[in-house]
Every structure is written in C-alpha cells, then in structure tokens.
C-alpha cells in the first residue's frame, strides 16, 4: 500500500441479515480491508443490529449463514465492533451477541465513533 498513515474505514450495517445480501456484501468488504491490514470498524444500527443477535441460522431458511464468518473477525484484526443501544432497545433486543467484543454504545457515543472514521460505507 502506498500511503504512509493508515486511513480508518467504518462499515455501517443497517439491514437485517437474511432479507437481502447487504450484510454479506458488507462482510466481504470488511474481510478484504482486514486482509490488506487496513483498519476497519464495524457499526450496527437500525435493523442492522439483528446481524449480531445470537441463535440465528440462515441455513434453516436456505440462506447462506454468513453470520458464522463474524467469528473470524479477530483473525483479520477487526476489533472495533459497535452496536447502537437505542436500536436494540427499540426492537426489544438485549445484548446477547454471537461474537465477543461487541461494544454497546448510546446514540451520542455511537455517532461520535462513527464520524471519527475517515471513510464510511453504508450497507
């Protein structure tokens, strides 16, 4: 990579896991940036928070269970994973996630973390 200081990328996930391929498309970007050793932070907001909830299995409805791959984040040095507390509360969801290291942030902290990144891609 030609740059001297590494830029930070935020991937904002806003869609539920199985109704569209948005989550998988976002995951592919996260992993490729990870494999090029570029800093990536993942953000989950709105319906996107459902991608983190444990006990789901897409294969039961014939959808590729890409959520399993979230377990590989640590191998790609993806350690910043943030979820919006308000979005969880609005959906009656609790912080029962299928991966470790997820940070639940209130709306203000979530926004602050998000806008601190140099690039934001939204899925």
């Amino acid at each position, binding site marked *: 990579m030609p740059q001297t200081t590494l*830029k930070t990328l935020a991937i904002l996930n806003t869609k539920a896991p199985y109704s569209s391929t948005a989550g998988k498309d976002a995951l592919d970007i996260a992993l490729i940036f990870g494999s090029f050793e570029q800093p990536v932070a993942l953000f989950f907001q709105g319906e996107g928070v459902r991608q983190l909830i444990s006990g789901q299995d897409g294969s039961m409805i014939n959808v590729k269970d890409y959520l399993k791959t979230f377990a590989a984040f640590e191998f790609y040095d993806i350690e910043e994973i943030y979820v919006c507390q308000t979005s969880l509360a609005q959906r009656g969801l609790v912080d029962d996630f299928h991966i470790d290291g997820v940070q639940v942030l209130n709306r203000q902290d979530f926004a602050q973390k998000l806008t601190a990144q140099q690039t934001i*891609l939204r899925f």
Partner: protein
Amino acid sequence: MKKLAVMITTPPYSNLSVTALDYIKSALNSDIELIGVFFYQDGVLHANANVQIASDEFQAIAHWQKLHQKYKLPLHLCITAAEKRGMSAEDEKSINTIFTVSGLGELVELTTKADRMVQF
C-alpha cells in the same frame, strides 16, 4: 489536487445514479482528481451490456461513456457481484467495454489512495 473516489451501489434505473453522475461531473469541473469509480452490489448493472433503459428515461451509460472518453475515468467492476448479475469476464459481449474487470482489492486501493471515498 484533492483526490476523490466514488463507489456506486445503486442500479442504472435508480435516480441516485443521476445524483452520482451530477456529483462526479461537479467534482471534475472543480479541479478535483477523480481517481476511479468502483461498481458494487446492484451498481454493477451499469456495466451490463444487455441492460436496456426506455429511451425517454435517464441513460446512465451514455454519461459514463462520455466521462470515460473525456477524462479516461477508470470504471472498476466488481466481477463477483457482476457474475451474480449475468455478466462474465469470459463473455466479453456481456460487459460494456469502458469498464475494467476488478475485485474488492481495487476498492481497498481506491479508498486508501483517495482523500475521500463517496458512496451512492
């Protein structure tokens, strides 16, 4: 000169394509260097040679063609997303010739080189 990169995730029949093209043209007219456009998700349909938009609707491809000719603008196509949508690197006729067959690695390259990456 500031460097800009753009990612297109919306299809050619979306009004966001009009916004994206307006944005790109404004950038090019404002001494901003557009280092490349990356097409992902339904955005790859811009490159599908078989897409036909009714003649009284916005012809995104005509605008991409003009920009590509005038500025030699690199138009990168995520081939994995494109294959899901009926295009193939082996079938040259399926992909409009102004597009370059690429992968997500190119997106990393564009994002790291650009001062700003904007998604439509």
